[in-house]
């Protein structure tokens, strides 16, 4: 069993902590995990992307082959389109619908949404609204994890444990908010 995920977004959106929740949960659930990160320039605002591979056997490559990813998860709608070449025909795209317009030539928002709706298997998430409902505008990335959880081969209990592990330092309130964000995300169809 192997499960390949492309994670995408814009620098500063919390893509790495999103990745780390899934990776921690996957390891807890008994998978081998390899994850390539995007480091480098400290500034925000550039496109970022990471590869994550889960498997119960040996994983050699850190990179996922074109047309073979089981899932693309994106914190930004335009960025989700950028990484479609990696998605397998049976794969699913889980993406935020909240645009980050820090470039002059950002395409028409409706055009981006149209392109997304045409995909064979897609889950569009209004993470901004749901994060607010959960109690923190910053919990958008956990809403997205929640939305992805239905297709991930990882049980929700492991995801919650991972949230616990990663946010415990910040106090119980933060943990509860992120739990709620996960739950609200998981109800998106």
């Amino acid at each position, binding site marked *: 069993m192997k499960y390949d995920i492309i994670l995408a977004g814009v620098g500063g959106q919390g893509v790495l902590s999103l990745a780390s929740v899934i990776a921690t949960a996957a390891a807890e659930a008994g998978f081998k995990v390899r994850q*390539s990160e995007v480091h480098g320039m400290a500034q925000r605002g550039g*496109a970022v992307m990471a590869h994550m591979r889960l498997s119960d056997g040996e994983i050699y490559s850190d990179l996922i082959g074109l047309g073979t990813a089981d899932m693309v998860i994106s914190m930004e709608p*335009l960025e989700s389109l950028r990484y479609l070449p990696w998605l397998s025909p049976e794969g699913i795209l889980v993406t935020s619908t909240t645009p980050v317009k820090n470039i002059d030539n950002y395409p028409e928002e409706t055009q981006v949404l149209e392109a997304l709706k045409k995909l064979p298997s897609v889950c569009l998430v209004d993470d901004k609204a749901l994060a607010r409902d959960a109690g923190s505008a910053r919990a958008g990335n956990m809403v997205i994890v929640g939305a992805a959880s239905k297709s991930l081969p990882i049980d929700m209990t492991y995801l919650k444990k991972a949230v616990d592990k990663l946010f415990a330092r910040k106090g119980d309130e933060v943990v509860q908010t992120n739990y709620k964000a996960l739950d609200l995300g998981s109800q998106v169809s």
Partner: protein
Amino acid sequence: MSETVVLGDEAVALGALHGGVSSCYGYPGTPSTEIMEYLIENSQNGPLASWSSNEKTAMEEALGTSFAGKRAIVTMKHVGLNVAADAFMNGALLDIRGGLVIVVADDPGMHSSQNEQDTRYYADFARVPLLEPVNQQQAYEMTREGFDLSERMGVPVLLRLVTRLSHSRAAIQTQPPRAENALNKADNKQDWMLLPANARRRWSSLLGRQKDMIAYSEKSPVNSLELNESNRERAVITTGLGYNYFMENKGELTDQPSHLHIGVYPVPEEKIRTLAAHVKKLVILEEGYPYVERLIAGLLPRELKIIGKLDNIVPLQGELTPDNVRPALGLPERNAAVASSMTLPGRPPQLCAGCPHDDTYKVIKEVQEELEESTVTSDIGCYALGALPPLGVPETIICMGASITAAKGCAEAGLKNVMAVIGDSTFLHSGMTGLVDCVSSGSDVTIIIVDNETTAMTGGQTTILPSSRLEQVVKGIMGDGEHILTIPAHRKSHEENKEKLRKELAYSGVSVIIAVRECIETARKANKKRS
């Protein structure tokens, strides 16, 4: 034995800590930065770990530790090895006592670098061994092994990483740590003084040890050769991450090729000959330059067909991927199954909103607009992003420290109103010597040190000297204080700053303007820590 999930860089750091390292030196540079960060964070009460002014000073400090008989590690990115090259090439001639491991992280694909150079050439150039891990586990083991090898052969050992490994996470098994070496100063000082007579003797000793290095590489289980007797058509040689991409695709091959992996250099010539004698065609997958490919083309019989980067079947540029090695293996290309017809605009990195450099560049830009002619050279750091729209100010970005010296050249060639932009950390790295040159020849340049009180681009390491000392350093070089001024890099002072810049441009001689305001990212982190 315990299992931990680490970055490739962190695996190296752990390998060093468990390998009995006593001193760790380096200069930050993506993708190598996290090695030192981990060492600094995890070496309390243990070995010394600290940043140096630049890669050359780091290398020389490590040589000092080795002279004292203790183990040392030096970390840098590939272009940093150019800075350290003088010390590195000479260090190879010394009688290395305490194990010395030089970790260099290459950046094929130029994720955040000015070039793609391949560090394996430096190992060959200096005639020292190089180890090249394919995953986090090997990165850990090879670092430990590197110290032993260095002590056994009496030479520095290079460890080559690439971005994809430095910045990928996976679990590793660790071994019990080894104690640090006792203090044990080199007993024969003739072997540490490179006067011509000694150097000639040391050079011939180094050449004499080549056969031991090759024997080591020939025997190393890392350089593994698997011969498939039933397939005499085609064999594969992999190096570095080429191994992973080969293994990833191997299952799809109907006729399993014989396979030699090379992770310890100098290359195992016997194993290569054995493999080559076995087949008609050789496929070579290596991360970086076609180093092995070019090397062995001369070793092998002419009839043998070599498939690799030289004929561009494997791309000569950028990283290897599980996809781009497929044609060389005779596998069909994989295509994107789902695609969108929209053309997607790029999204390059930008200066953070509110970055102090932004304010300084706006001052420069507006003053430039008043001038008939002007030139701006930039250096390596966040402020290099000022070259992208909407600012688009700098005209040259060459290498660390080169803004000041390039500006000198521009001015001396006859260009007017020449300005050099350089960061505080870069100024201390290798800008200072350029300032010495400018002062010595009285060049007509205006140097703008953008002092954000940190090494921002690599994540906010502290600069080697506190920023408050910069002005004194500049004064020490320039002698008088008249054309040295410190200004706040702030919107509030925009008009005054413009006026000051105009005045310094009008002065014909060296001026230094230090524009100060802390990077908002490090300020934010510091605030968080306090609260």
